[in-house]
C-alpha cells in the first residue's frame, strides 16, 4: 500500500500535463474579443496574450476615438510585464508538486491557481469597466446613458458593434490546467470516500456549463420587431401578432414573420431538427407561446404579412370567440400544419 499522503502516478501525470498546458499558454493568445459590425463583415479581433495585446488593435483604436474611448497600448498594462512571470511561477510550482507528489502541495497549488484565475478575471473586468466608462467628454458621438464595456464572457451589442468575448487557446489551456489539477485531486482521493468524486464531477460540470453557457437562454428568444428578419422570406419581422420561432436541437434560433413561413421553412429542411416551436399570441403584441398546445384560426379575414392568414391563441375560448367573429373554425397545431402542408387535400381545391 502506498503512502496515503503521496499522489498516485496518474495524478502526477495530470499535474505534469497541467504544467505543460500553462507553459504553452505563454505562447498563444489567452483571450479574444471579437467585434462585428455591418461595415466589418470579416470582423475585428482583439487578442490578449500573456505579454501583449494583439490582433486588430490599431484599427480598433482608430474606431474608438469616435466614442471617446482611450486607445489600447500594451505598455499601459503592468499585467503584460508580470503575467509571464506569474504563469512561469505556476509552471514551476506544478513541476514541484509533480516532483514532491504530496497531496498537501497539490491542494495548495490548486487553491493558488483558482485564486489566480479569479483575480485575473476580476482584473480583466476592471480594465473593461474603465475602458468602457471613462470616455472623453469631447467625443464626437455621445449617446446618453451608453457605456461601451465589453462583456467579460459572451456577447453584447455596443452601438453598431457586436462584441463577443471568449477564451482563446491559452484561456482554454488554463481551464484545462484547472480541470487537470482537480482531476489529479479527485483520483488521489482515498477509495473510502467513493461518493465524493461523483458529486465533484456533477458540481464541476454544472459550474462549467452554467458559467460558459450564461448567454444561452431557455424558452423562446424574443422577436425584435423591425430588427429581426424572417428566416424564410428574409423580410423584417414587424407585426408582433403573427411571428413564429423555431429552436433547433443544436440551439439555433430561427424567427419568422408568419406561421406560413415557419411551416415552409420546416418543410424545406431535409430532416427535422426542431426542438421547440413557438408562435405569437394574436391577442398580445410580440409574445411567443408554445405552438403545439395553442389554438388556431385560419381565415382570409386575417391579413398576416405573408398571407398565411393564421392567428394563434393561447386559450381555446379566445380562439373560438374570434373564429365565430370571422365565421371560421378553431384548429389544433396538427390540423393546421397538415392543412397548410397539404393544401390539395382540401376538398374544395380538389379537381381530380
Amino acid at each position: 500500500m502506498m503512502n496515503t499522503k503521496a499522489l498516485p502516478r496518474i495524478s502526477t501525470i495530470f499535474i505534469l500535463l497541467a504544467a505543460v498546458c500553462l507553459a504553452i499558454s505563454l505562447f498563444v493568445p489567452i483571450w479574444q474579443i471579437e467585434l462585428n459590425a455591418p461595415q466589418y463583415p470579416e470582423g475585428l479581433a482583439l487578442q490578449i496574450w500573456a505579454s501583449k495585446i494583439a490582433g486588430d488593435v490599431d484599427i480598433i483604436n482608430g474606431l474608438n476615438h469616435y466614442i471617446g474611448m482611450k486607445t489600447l497600448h500594451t505598455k499601459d498594462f503592468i499585467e503584460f510585464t508580470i503575467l509571464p512571470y506569474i504563469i512561469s511561477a505556476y509552471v514551476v510550482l506544478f513541476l514541484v508538486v509533480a516532483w514532491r507528489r504530496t497531496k498537501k502541495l497539490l491542494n495548495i497549488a490548486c487553491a493558488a491557481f483558482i485564486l489566480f484565475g479569479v483575480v485575473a478575471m476580476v482584473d480583466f473586468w476592471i480594465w473593461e469597466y474603465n475602458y468602457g466608462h471613462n470616455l472623453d467628454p469631447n467625443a464626437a458621438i455621445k449617446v446618453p446613458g451608453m457605456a461601451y464595456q465589453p462583456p467579460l464572457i459572451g456577447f453584447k451589442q455596443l452601438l453598431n458593434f457586436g462584441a463577443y468575448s471568449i477564451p482563446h487557446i491559452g484561456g482554454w489551456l488554463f481551464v484545462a490546467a484547472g480541470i487537470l489539477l482537480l482531476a489529479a485531486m479527485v483520483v488521489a482521493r482515498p477509495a473510502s470516500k467513493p461518493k465524493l468524486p461523483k458529486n465533484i464531477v456533477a458540481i464541476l460540470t454544472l459550474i462549467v456549463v452554467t458559467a460558459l453557457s450564461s448567454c444561452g437562454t431557455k424558452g423562446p428568444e424574443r422577436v425584435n420587431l423591425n430588427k429581426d428578419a424572417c428566416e424564410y422570406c428574409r423580410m423584417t419581422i414587424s407585426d408582433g401578432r403573427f411571428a413564429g420561432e423555431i429552436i433547433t436541437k443544436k440551439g439555433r434560433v430561427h424567427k419568422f414573420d408568419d406561421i406560413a413561413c415557419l411551416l415552409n421553412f420546416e418543410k424545406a429542411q431535409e430532416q427535422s431538427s426542431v426542438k421547440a416551436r413557438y408562435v405569437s399570441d394574436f391577442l398580445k403584441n410580440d409574445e411567443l407561446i408554445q405552438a403545439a398546445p395553442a389554438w388556431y384560426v385560419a381565415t382570409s379575414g386575417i391579413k398576416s404579412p405573408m398571407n398565411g392568414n393564421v392567428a394563434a391563441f393561447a386559450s381555446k375560448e379566445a380562439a373560438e370567440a374570434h373564429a365565430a367573429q370571422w365565421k371560421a373554425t378553431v384548429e389544433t397545431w396538427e390540423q393546421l400544419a397538415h392543412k397548410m402542408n397539404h393544401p390539395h387535400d382540401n376538398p374544395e381545391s380538389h379537381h381530380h
Partner: protein
Amino acid sequence: MSVNKILAAALCLSVTWFTSCKPKGSGNAVGADAAAKTYVAPGKYDELYNFVSGGFSGQLSVYGIPSGRLLRVIPVFSADPEKGWGYSEETKPMLNTSHGYVPWDDLHHVEMSMTDGVADGKWVFVNGNNTPRLARIDLKTFRTAEIIELPNSAGNHSSPFGTENSEYIVAGTRFSVPPDGDKSDVPIKTYKENFKGHISFVSIDKNTGAMDLAFQLKTPGVNFDLARAGKGKSHDWFFFSCYNTEQANTLLEVNASKRDKDFIMAVNWKKAEEYVKAGKGVKQAVTYAHNTFDEATQTAKSEMKKEVTVLDVAAFPDLVYFIPCPKSPHGCDVDPTGEYIVGSGKLAALLPVFSYDKIQAAIAAKSFEPEKYAGVPVIKYEAALYGEVQKPGLGPLHTEFDGKGNAYTSFFVSSEVVKWNIKDLKVLDRQPTYYSVGHLMIPGGNTKKPYGKYLIAYNKITKDRYLPTGPELSQSAQLYDISGDKMQLILDYPTIGEPHYAQAVPAELIKDKQLKIFDINANKHPYKANGEAEAKVVRQGTTVHVYLTTIRSHLTPDNIEGVQLGDEVYFHVTNLEQDWDVPHGFAIKGANNSELLIMPGETTTLKWVPDRIGVFPIYCTDFCSALHQEMSGYVRVSPKGSNVPITFGLGDK
C-alpha cells in the same frame, strides 16, 4: 477515466453553447423574387434613368433602373481621354477656372431641373466640391453644356439644390473662408472674425438653362453641408444644414463636434431677391470663370467675370433664421408637401422633424433664443419642432420620401435604411445595407411627386460583396423595392467611384428627346471641312492646320507631308457621317494628348507637337465598320527648315 470523459464532455458542450449563442453576420437579405423584379430582357429598355454622382472621379454616371446597367459616364469636371473631354481644343476651356486649367473635381450631388416641383428632364446640375464649380448637363446630348465657378467659396458641398421651377440653383460653401480679395491673407486662428460662409444663388434661364451668379448671401463662418428648397407653401424658403457652429479651425473632428445642437439655416430667398432688386446688395470685385459650350460652333469659351452682388445676412433682420438642430446635421430634407423639414444630425441619437408652419409662427411670435448667433436670430428649438423620431438608428445622413407619407433615412454607422412615418414619427421598417450607406434616393423622392417604387442606397464599403480587386474595392448601389409595406432588397451592383447623391426619372421623360446626330449643315465650327473636297493642310508660319474628314472607312487626307519639327499641328477632324451611333475616333502616335471622339456632323481638334522626325500613323480609334482597321494614314515629319513641301492626298488624288 470516466471522470475525465465527463469533464471533457462538459467542456465540449460549453464550447458548443458558446459558438451557438454568437449572433450570425448580417448575411444576405435579398428578396426571393428579386431576379424577376430587376430583369430587363436583352433588347428591352429600363424603366428609369438614374443620374449618379461619380464623386472623386469628377464625372456623372448614368444607370438604367431596375437593371442597374451602366449606360454612360458623362465627363464633367475631370478630363476624360475616352471622349477627348478636356484634351480637345474645343473642350479645354470648359475646365478653365480663375486658377487656370483644373482638370479634376469632386462631384457630389445631382439636381435635375424642375417645373412645378417635378423633374422636367431638361438638364442635370452637378457640383464640383474642390475648386467650387457648378455644371449644367444637357439631357438632349448628355454633355456638359456649362460650368460656372463660384467666388468667395471653398468646398462647394451644399450644392446644387434648386427651387421648384429651377429659378435658382444654390451653392453653399462647405469651408468658410475669408472672402476673396486683397484682405484674404489673415491668420487662420482669426477664423471667428475673418472667415465667412457664402451661399451663391445661381439663376437659371428657363428656356436655355443658362446660368448666372445672381447674388450671394454672406453668412456667419460655419460649414454648410446640404440644403433643400421649400415646396408648395414653403416655396419662398430654402433650408441649409450647418455644422461647425463652434467655428473651429483645427481638429474639426473633435472641435466641431462639441455643441449638442448646430443649425438648420432657413433663408427667405424671395426676400433676398427683393433686396437685390432694390439695390441693397454690395458689389464686390471678384474673379470667376464662366464656361459655356456653343453647340453651333461646337466650341467652348471661357469668360472671366469680375463682380458679384453680396447681401450680408446680419444686415437684414427678416432674411435668415437659424433653427437649432442636433448634432452636426448632414441631410436637410423637405417632404413633398413642403411642411416637414427633416434634419439628420449625423452624431445625434434622434431625428428631428421641423414644421414649416411652426417656423412661420415662431418668426411671427418672435420665439427666439435670447442671444442671436453672429447677428442672426435663432428660433427656439421647441418652437420650430414638429417632433422627433426616437432611436431611429446610428449616424443618420439623408432622407427621401415616397409620397405616401413615409420617409426613408440612411444610417451610415448602423448601415441600414429606415422607413418611418412622417405624421406619427414611428419607425415602420429597417433593412440592412452592405455597407455604410451614404446617400439614398427614391426616384423623384426630393420632389412634390415621388415616383416611389424604388429606393437606391449608395454604399461606401463593399468588402465581401463582389470579387475582390486589390486594395481598392468598388463602391456600390443597392436597389430596394419599396412598393410594399416592407423594403425588399432586389439588386446589388458596383458603381464608379464614388456615388454620393443621385436622382432618377422615368425614361419617357428623356429618351425620345435624344439628339442622334449633329446636322452637318448647322455646324459653324471655323475649321469645319464641309465634305472631302474641303479637306486640306494649311501652313501659317510654324502652325499647321489639318482640315481632316472622316467617313466609313477612310480619313481624308490620309497621306500628309511637309510637317516640320518645331511645328504645332492642329488636326481639325470633321465627322461627315449623318447616321446615329457612328462616331469616329482619331489618334496619332506620340501625341501628348488623348484621342478625339467625333460625333456625326461634329468638328473636333487635336493639337500635336511632333518631337522627332519620321513617319507617324494616324487612325480611327472607334471600331466604325468592317474596314475600320483600314481607316488609317501617315503624317511625315521632316527636320526644321526642310524643303519638303506641304502635300496631302487620298488615293491618287
